[in-house]
């Protein structure tokens, strides 16, 4: 059986362990052995995107110690996949890794999800790094459609949800206003995204407001269905 290394990401490990378990389950269903390198920590992105390169380097080194270049690294996060594939090698001066964002990996592996979302209306939220740096937008939609979902478009699919890492706490008012626009733009459909950051931000907002659409990670939407 071919094997992959799973990079849970810090946010996935700490706050969205269920979604990471779902990602692991999907990879197994797709016929892969899932290796979890226990030395993994974080890709260093929070510091990198705030300009703290020395701090980012220190943390990103843990990625180098944990992962091998022999097997694909699959990441259930568009922005951490971007950091690990686009920025980390340059930051550390190391050879690139074979990094894959989860949905892109599943689609190229020919994975067909179970029809757990038959008739469900889903608005897929493109996280910015995944859309504009990795250029992955068709694959998650393809998987959701294959799971039976009816995909609806956001009013303004191009707009960022307002997370933006430390932006969310440096400019909290603007960040929240962006979240509210994004939530309203789903037109009542369930929101599915591939980024734990967007998920934490948008779901945190609906929880605080006590209303708004459900927000799920793509892995959970595929593994359990959005109605579960």
């Amino acid at each position, binding site marked *: 059986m071919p094997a992959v290394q799973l990079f*849970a990401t810090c*946010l996935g*490990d*700490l*706050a*969205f*362990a269920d979604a990471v*378990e779902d990602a692991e389950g999907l990879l197994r269903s797709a016929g892969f052995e899932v290796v*979890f390198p*226990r030395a*993994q*920590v*974080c890709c260093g992105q*929070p*510091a990198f*995107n*705030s*300009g*703290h*390169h*020395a*701090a*980012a380097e*220190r*943390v990103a*080194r*843990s990625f180098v110690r944990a992962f091998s270049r022999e097997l694909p690294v699959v990441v259930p996060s568009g922005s951490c996949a971007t950091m690990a594939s686009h920025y980390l090698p340059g930051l550390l001066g190391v050879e690139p890794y074979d990094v894959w964002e989860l949905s892109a990996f599943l689609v190229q592996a020919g994975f067909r999800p179970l029809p757990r979302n038959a008739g469900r209306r889903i608005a897929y939220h493109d996280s*910015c790094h995944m859309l*504009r*740096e990795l250029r992955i937008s068709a694959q998650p939609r393809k998987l959701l459609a294959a799971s039976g979902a009816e995909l609806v478009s956001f009013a*303004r699919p*191009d*707009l*960022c949800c*307002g*997370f*933006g*890492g*430390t*932006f*969310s*706490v*440096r*400019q*909290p*008012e*603007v*960040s*929240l*206003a*962006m*979240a509210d*626009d994004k939530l309203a733009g789903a037109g009542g459909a369930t929101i599915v995204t591939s980024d734990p950051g967007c998920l*934490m*931000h948008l*779901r*945190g*907002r609906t*929880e*605080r407001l006590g209303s708004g659409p459900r927000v799920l990670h793509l892995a959970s939407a595929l593994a359990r269905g959005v109605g579960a």
Partner: protein
Amino acid sequence: MPELAQPASRFREIARGKLADARVQTALDEATNRLRTNRVGAWGNLPDVEELRQQAHEIRMAVIDDLDAHVSRFTAALEARGGHVFFARTAAEASGYVAEVCRRRGATLAAKSKSMASEEIGLNEALEAVGVRPVETDLGEYILQLAGEHPEHILAPAIEKTADEVAELLSRAGGKPVPPELEALTNAARTQLRETFLQADVGITGANFGVSETGSICLVTNEGNGRLVSSIPPVHVAIMGMERLVPSTADLAVLLKLLARSATGQKLSVYTTLLTGPRRPGETDGPEEQHVVILDNGRSQLLRGRYREMLACIRCGACLNVCPVYRKAGGAAYSSVYSGPMGAVLLPLLVGLQQAPSLPHASSLCGACTEACPVKIPLHELLLDLRRDLVEERVAPWLERVGFTLWSLAWSRPLGYRLTTRLARLTQPLAGLVGPGRAWARGRALPRLERRYRDRR
């Protein structure tokens, strides 16, 4: 340039005010979305927009690589046509030169066409100080001048003003009521401005481009005021950022193909004016004197560094129209005539990071700006580089630097990660009380830290 300085909390304070104003929010949303949709449509109608963007990028970068030579060539060409060229190193030198031209001509009234460069150097204040009354003739700028405000968008300066507000301003200025309808408003402004065009002693414009080969200035307007201002008054002064040169008219054509399309979605703006020197013997119109002020004001510092690509900017406003942050915060939060992503990059470069420390962080780094830039400036990457400079130049707050250092020491090894996250889970109820957790928790639930994935395996 004290008027450009931007203290750390200013962006957030101004943005908060704009967010609370529903009328401003609607105006920003509608205007930016309309301009964005128009641009996307216009780009889509080009046979190969990517090739054109690349070509435009190369033309701009070739000029920046050899800017001194282009400035000399432009100067020689224009002087050969009887124009005057003044190279201003600072804002004060530039406005001082324009004031001196006005003084020498005994001018009391100056008609201005929209010019971001003149806003940048605070020209209106400098003219008023020497007894010259500057009147803005671009409709949006005229409205703002009547309101005593500054531009909120480099292309659509009065973007946040509604028809009712404009009607009120024009009614007061003209001394009779004007209904809040587009045609009536335009006619009122037209009547009020007509006298200014005819009586002005000096006409002042910006310059969308200068052509090195010919010494020409290219003005792009939709209202025709640029043409009136540069041809009716006896003296025409153009203020041009030193980087706005293109090698030849053929290169100009490439950039003109992109400028209006990227700005408003038009193929060309209504008026595209090429001016080459003052009126010559036998000609029936044009100014007796023409002056071009070439403005450095911090630009030459960017020529050799990693921010040189910012000098390629053609001020189309496309990045503002796609920016999810500009769209909520509005232009004033950026504290200068330059707002949105291009402003967030440019202002710290022109005035120094110390003067504008919050601007590199006034972005979610979504990258929509880079995607919309017709001359392919990697705006969000430049913001990321500026954030790095904030840290390296120790402008970033001490507490932030210590915080990231301690965090990175803990998270450099799995043991430190496990211990700190265990601690974080135990102290969860306190997370919303201090620091970033507090800012987060103001409008969002904090994520619940449950059993880690790594402990479930």
